[in-house]
């Protein structure tokens, strides 16, 4: 049984359209779960349901065996890092971080000790007396994280915490977050719409679309075995065709899942050779683009247009006839 369980959650802002539909999700203890999906798919909404900031219309949320569905926000003891950070502008860094502890009537000395420790972990020692306005974006981010962590939350929730940072800082911060999360062993839910960021730090990834979970798996599993066309497209598959077509053209033989109707392959997994290439399908190069590491070709074949990326030394000109090979192990079948 998992640590946290969302079951059959429905959410509607206007009582007509459902933003989340029958959503179920498992959070494993000590792991970092990412919610990944296009803008507007309901990631923030899901996170806010977990935090208790939104009441779902139906469904339940259990954590560690206790029903949390109707527990009020301030009694949940979850740490949340907001996209805007939501640091209290009138309080110093120290007072921001100590805010939650003071509400728990922790003694002065203990507060100082715990705040000091968490600031050290987050790498913001020495900024105690500053106000949020006097910090850089990355520092604010760390203060927000420290503030959420110091209350020793049962769950850490992060809503696109890196989206306001520049590219280099994002890279650095995501490593920090991962390190701190592992060090403290804290179960976390991380919202993002950046695929690379998500795959690099998650133990589990939930891909969302239109208020539903499309697939929830480890990053490796999602990368190599997407469960649906949407997920496949999301993780870089470009070439889709029906099984019927593939069998007709002898790309695959009989030994595959008979339930499958679709199959797909990444551009870089297709083998490209000249027209003498055996076990291949002929095609004509129509467009060639240079990508730096590789050339990308749009090839016209009996399957339709196929996108191929090739880092081979041989370069084909537009109009050239080529042969395409589809390695069996790289083909992914979709139901």
């Amino acid at each position, binding site marked *: 049984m998992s640590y946290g369980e969302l079951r059959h959650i429905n959410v509607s802002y206007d009582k007509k359209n459902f933003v989340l539909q029958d959503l179920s999700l498992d959070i494993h203890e000590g792991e970092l779960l990412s919610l990944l999906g296009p803008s507007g798919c309901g990631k923030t909404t899901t996170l806010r349901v977990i*935090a208790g900031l939104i009441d779902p219309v139906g469904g339940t949320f259990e954590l560690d065996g206790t029903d949390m569905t109707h527990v009020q*926000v301030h009694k949940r003891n979850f740490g*949340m890092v907001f996209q805007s950070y*939501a640091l209290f502008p009138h309080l110093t860094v120290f007072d921001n971080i100590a*805010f939650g502890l003071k509400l728990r009537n922790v003694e002065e000395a203990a507060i100082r000790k715990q705040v000091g420790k968490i600031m050290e972990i987050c790498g913001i020692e020495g900024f105690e007396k500053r106000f949020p306005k006097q910090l850089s974006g990355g520092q604010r981010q760390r203060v927000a994280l420290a503030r*959420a962590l110091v209350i020793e939350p049962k769950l850490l929730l992060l809503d696109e915490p890196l989206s306001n940072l520049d590219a280099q800082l994002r890279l650095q911060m995501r490593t920090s977050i991962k390190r701190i999360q592992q060090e403290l062993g804290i179960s976390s839910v991380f919202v993002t719409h950046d695929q690379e960021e998500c795959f690099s730090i998650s133990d589990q990834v939930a891909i969302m679309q239109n208020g539903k979970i499309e697939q929830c798996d480890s990053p490796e599993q999602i990368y190599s075995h997407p469960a649906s066309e949407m997920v496949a497209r999301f993780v870089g598959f470009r070439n889709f065709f029906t099984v019927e077509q593939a069998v007709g053209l002898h790309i695959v033989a009989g030994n595959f899942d008979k339930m499958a109707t679709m199959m797909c392959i990444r551009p870089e997994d297709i083998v490209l050779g000249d027209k003498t290439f055996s076990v291949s399908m002929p095609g004509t190069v129509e467009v060639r683009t240079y990508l730096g590491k590789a050339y990308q070709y749009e090839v016209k074949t009996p399957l339709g247009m196929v996108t191929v990326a090739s880092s081979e030394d041989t370069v084909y000109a537009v109009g050239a006839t080529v042969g395409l090979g589809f390695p069996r192990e790289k083909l992914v079948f979709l139901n």
Partner: protein
Amino acid sequence: MYKHRLVTIVAWLCFAFIFLPLILIVVTSFNSADSISLPLEGFSLQWFVKVFRSRSLVQSLKNSLVLALVSSTIGIVFGLLSSIALVKRPGKISTILLSIFLSPSLIPGIVIGYVLFHFLVVSLQLPLNLALILGHLLVVMPYSVRIICASLKDIDESLEEAALTLGCPPSRAFMKVVLPNLRPAMISAFMLSFINSFNNIPVSMYLKGPGMNTLPYAMMNHIEYNYDPTVSALSVMLMGLTLVLMIAMDWSMSAQRLKSKAAQGE
């Protein structure tokens, strides 16, 4: 950057036009001559003494101060309540109400004074001091609502949510994390309300009565019959008061900044 000579000339004439009359008042208030005239005759504080000897001026000064204090205090409290509702629940009704709350600054003051007089005093026969307070509340309403609303909109909505997730009960979240950040706005709303109520003539003029006069109108009466620098002296005192208010406001606004500067210096 290049400036045409004409621009400089117009600008300095403009500054002179704005400041010389005020300087004239200040200078003549210390002059011993009993009319506003140049050249100066000699230094004297007699006009300042005269202000305090004038029963009507002193009484109306007290009235004006109390009136401005009461109406601005009530004004910012009500303004805060209304702003919370308007900002936290936007929509058609809120938009309409906001424009109603702001309308007293669009309608000519004298019209407001007249309709208030006609309705509250003539029709409803309310006591004058109550009518005067209501009238001044109406005068300060646009300032408190506009300033507090603007500031409240600027404050990140997730502050309250952040406080909740950290364990703050909903009943205390607003007080703990939103209200402190509204302080500068509340102070400037109070100052602007105070100054506008204190200087108001058209509304007070209609709602005055025996013993219920306000300072600006008393000054106006005084000018009609006396031409001496008493009013200059009074004006100088008012300017001093205004200056103190302005500096106090500036100071309280930058207090936060100073505090944080000090922290930065460490």
